[in-house]
């Protein structure tokens, strides 16, 4: 009987334990953040390059086409009401408030998060983290915190680039391809949007950056130190980030709207 209970409840218990361990890990990361910023700034720059600068191409290509398809869909449906000029408003609101932050976070998880998780997992599997400790190098400062901070800095910047390129894509499709008046497109867009709308997108991108970076670093750090374990950690990074980002997106929107 107790065995049955244990088997039923152990996944739930495991989930709660995992969550607690992750929270403690976050506290550790934050504890070493100030000293890493002052002593290991170069490492953070290197990680911004890895996670951010190297993701810029995929972000721009995806942004261009997402913006373009938004322009197409908005135009096709607004045309029925003779309101093609509002294409810009629709595309801009969708991009700035929802699609920009969410898709950037998902792309970041796929492009950079997996790399972080497998890198850290492999370091753990090959005992590099333990070796650092033996050499009196703190792996927190040397490996984990720079990757965490690099992700946090990169995601909001990537989101801004994605949104800007997306607007450009919407402009190309709506104005150049479908013939919406360029003045109407931008003027209506500027009149409809407030600075608060842009802030909402920025707040989301910052939160998603923290969540995506934390999950990637955590999954790598907590990976089972085998080849299979590292593979599973990589998968779990993408799944966990996608779920967390989409749930948080709903919660932030509900709170800010």
């Amino acid at each position: 009987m107790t065995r049955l209970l244990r088997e039923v409840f152990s996944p739930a218990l495991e989930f709660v334990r995992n969550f607690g361990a992750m929270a403690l890990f976050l506290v550790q990361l934050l504890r070493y953040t100030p000293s890493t910023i002052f002593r290991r700034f170069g490492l953070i720059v290197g990680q911004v390059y890895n996670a951010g600068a190297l993701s810029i191409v995929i972000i721009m290509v995806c942004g261009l086409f997402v913006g373009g398809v938004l322009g197409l869909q908005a135009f096709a449906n607004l045309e029925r009401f003779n309101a093609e000029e509002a294409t810009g408003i629709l595309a801009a609101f969708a991009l700035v408030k929802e699609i920009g932050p969410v898709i950037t976070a998902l792309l970041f998880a796929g492009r950079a998060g997996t790399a972080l998780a497998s890198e850290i997992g492999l370091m753990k599997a090959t005992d590099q983290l333990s070796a650092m400790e033996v050499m009196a190098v703190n792996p927190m400062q040397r490996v984990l915190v720079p990757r965490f901070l690099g992700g946090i800095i990169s995601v909001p910047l990537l989101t801004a680039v994605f949104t800007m390129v997306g607007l450009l894509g919407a402009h190309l499709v709506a104005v150049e391809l479908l013939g919406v008046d360029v003045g109407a497109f931008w003027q209506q867009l500027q009149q409809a949007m407030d600075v608060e709308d842009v802030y909402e997108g920025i707040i989301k991108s910052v939160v998603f950056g923290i969540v995506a970076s934390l999950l990637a670093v955590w999954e790598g750090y907590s990976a089972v130190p085998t080849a299979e374990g590292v593979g599973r950690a990589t998968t779990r990074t993408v799944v966990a980030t996608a779920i967390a980002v989409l749930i948080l997106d709903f919660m932030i929107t509900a709170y800010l709207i």
Partner: protein
Amino acid sequence: MRQNLAVEIGTGLFVLLGIGALFFLTTQTTGRNDFSNTDTYTVEARFENVGSLKTRAPVAMSGVTIGRVTGIEFDGASLEAVVTLVIDSRFDQIPDDSDASILTAGLLGSQYIGLQAGGSEIYLEEGSEILFTQSAIVLENLIGKFLVNSGSDEE
């Protein structure tokens, strides 16, 4: 060392691009003409009913935006809505007997304040009040009146 330099330049370019994009989003996609960084003066107008007028709504004269609504409050003593308008100082020759009315842009557009010039020699200035105002047209009231009238016609 070489490689390090390339990384730093790449990161720098990325960060600059990101900040540039943020700047673009906050300045180019949001409503300009908010008169927050030009010289302005503030006037008040009292309305019986402001309808669905919102703060930041434009104040227009001859169809050109010359200011914004910055505050809408209810005066409990006179039972009227007090609307605060901010007008660009370049337009300092608006007669003080001008007429302010709440209009709607298009059939389903948002509401704005339209000023109709008066004939006075005294101009509006900081703190003055627009005395002649016309309330927003509330569609429900209009329909109500129309129904009542058409009902009485049949008698």
